[in-house]
């Protein structure tokens, strides 16, 4: 039965080129839009995450902290899962940095003698939301005099991250729903144009699955063709555009998920073939035995 179904499906696809091309074209374009937007959202999200990983907590050390206590503290911090990098900044280093910052007003710091600046630990975080925790832990250390958290930056980054995530998720999910809705509609329409055909088959004594198989196969084939072609376009665009973008917008430091493209392919196939098959199943069911149900 499957052999016949596939023959029949391929034949009708060929003999009804308009409908086949409309179905594949529509699906491919929808998946193309979906994956492009997914790529954009994922890239922006990755960019924001990269920015977030630059958030740091500064802990000023009391003058006279012993090197042993310091290294104990450093390694304790490093072992925390929410800490990415810990850097020690000595008193000299701190002064140099300040002088550099005020290089344009040499008069301002000329008056300073005896280097009043404390040494400090610069603690980079994995995610900005850990700032308060890490800050508290540092504050509790006896050798720490003061902890500085750039609340403003932290908050902004956390909010911006949440915003990007939210908008991105809304866009991708909303778009997926829209894509599935439209694909289902197109397949309903395509099968609607063939309800007479289905009616004839059932009157000749074809069982429900005998009628369904060709439609399901057609749906699967169209879906696969569409998702493959849209994937090829996205992959080509990705490979040719990303280096250009990374060149022009270097600071955004767009990172790459090496699995992004395979994931996209999988998603496309899942939606394309899934909706193709399910849409056909539902649409055929709808026209099955219209006189009785």
């Amino acid at each position, binding site marked *: 039965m499957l052999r016949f179904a596939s023959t029949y499906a391929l034949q009708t696809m060929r003999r*009804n080129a308009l409908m086949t091309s409309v179905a594949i074209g529509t699906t491919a374009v929808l998946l193309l839009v979906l994956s492009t937007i997914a790529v954009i959202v994922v890239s922006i999200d990755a960019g924001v995450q990269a920015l977030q990983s630059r958030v740091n907590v500064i802990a000023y050390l009391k003058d006279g902290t012993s090197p042993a206590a310091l290294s104990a503290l450093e390694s304790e911090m490093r072992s925390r899962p929410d800490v990415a990098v810990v850097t020690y900044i000595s008193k000299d280093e701190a002064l140099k940095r300040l002088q550099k910052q005020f290089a344009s007003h040499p008069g301002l710091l000329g008056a300073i003698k005896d280097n009043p600046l404390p040494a400090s630990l610069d603690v980079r975080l994995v995610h900005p939301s850990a700032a308060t925790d890490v800050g508290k832990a540092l504050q509790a250390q006896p050798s720490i005099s003061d902890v500085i958290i750039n609340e403003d930056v932290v908050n902004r980054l956390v909010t911006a991250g949440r915003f990007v995530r939210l908008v991105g998720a809304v866009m991708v999910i909303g778009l997926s729903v829209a894509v599935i809705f439209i694909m289902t509609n197109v397949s309903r329409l395509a099968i609607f144009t063939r309800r007479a055909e289905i009616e004839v088959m*059932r009157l000749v*004594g074809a*069982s429900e699955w005998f009628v369904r198989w060709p439609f399901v196969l057609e749906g699967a084939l169209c879906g696969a063709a569409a998702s493959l072609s849209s994937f090829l376009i996205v992959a080509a665009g990705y490979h040719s555009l990303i280096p250009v973008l990374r060149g022009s917008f270097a600071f955004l430091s767009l990172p790459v998920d090496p699995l992004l493209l395979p994931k996209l392919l999988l998603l496309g196939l899942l939606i394309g073939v899934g909706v193709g098959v399910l849409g056909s199943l539902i649409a055929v069911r709808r026209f099955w035995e219209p006189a009785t149900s």
Partner: protein
Amino acid sequence: MTTFDPIIRLDNVSKCYLNGVLALQSVSLTINPGEFVFLVGPSGSGKSTLLRLLLRDERVTTGRIFVAGHNLLRIQPGAIPQFRRRIGVVFQDYKLLPRLTAFENVAFALRVHGFHDARAIRERTIAVLELVGLRAQADRYPATLSGGEQQRVSVARALVTGPDMLLADEPTGNLDPDNALAIAELLDQINTFGTTVVVATHNRDLVDKFRRRVLQLDQGKLVRDEESGGYTLALAATGDSLGESTLPLDGRRPLTLPEGSR
């Protein structure tokens, strides 16, 4: 089903379509296996409706209907395809699959019946197409066939599976007298091999020539059931025995159309 029971039995069957048209009214009849029945009656008298009920394409509104051992009021939806495969049908509007060639349309019925062997399917299909005179048109699509050719494809599809029962709705309506006679002889021949045949027809010549059992419908009622009958009742051979014509023209009203203003 035992072979001695009637293959078709209608008890007081009425059919009222959704739009309120009462197409059949209290029709009771039995047809035994192996019978050859002509179904006659004026246009709109319910012939096609009766055939649709027999195929369980439509359901009866009241009354009971048994076909090939099935109570069609109780038959499970899942059992319907199996049931239909025992019946060959020639539809009044042919109902060919537009994207399949004549050959493929006929072969389709064999596929539905579970035939797999491509060579056997091919031989059998070609043989039946040859029987209806369409061997040369085998690879053409329905849209490129003449009306009569399409009708014969429909006949071929109904025959090819060797059904227990054959329902033919006006199978010669678009055929010239010679072809019509040939098709009728084909049905007759199939009947002699044991298939029950029910033919709805307007073809007076055929009915009169074959002299088989005649069921006559008029406005949804069974008005005649005659063994070896003619198209019209034997007593009154002229046209008006069929009841008043449905057309008002019989009174020879002059054709005066109201003039529409452009």
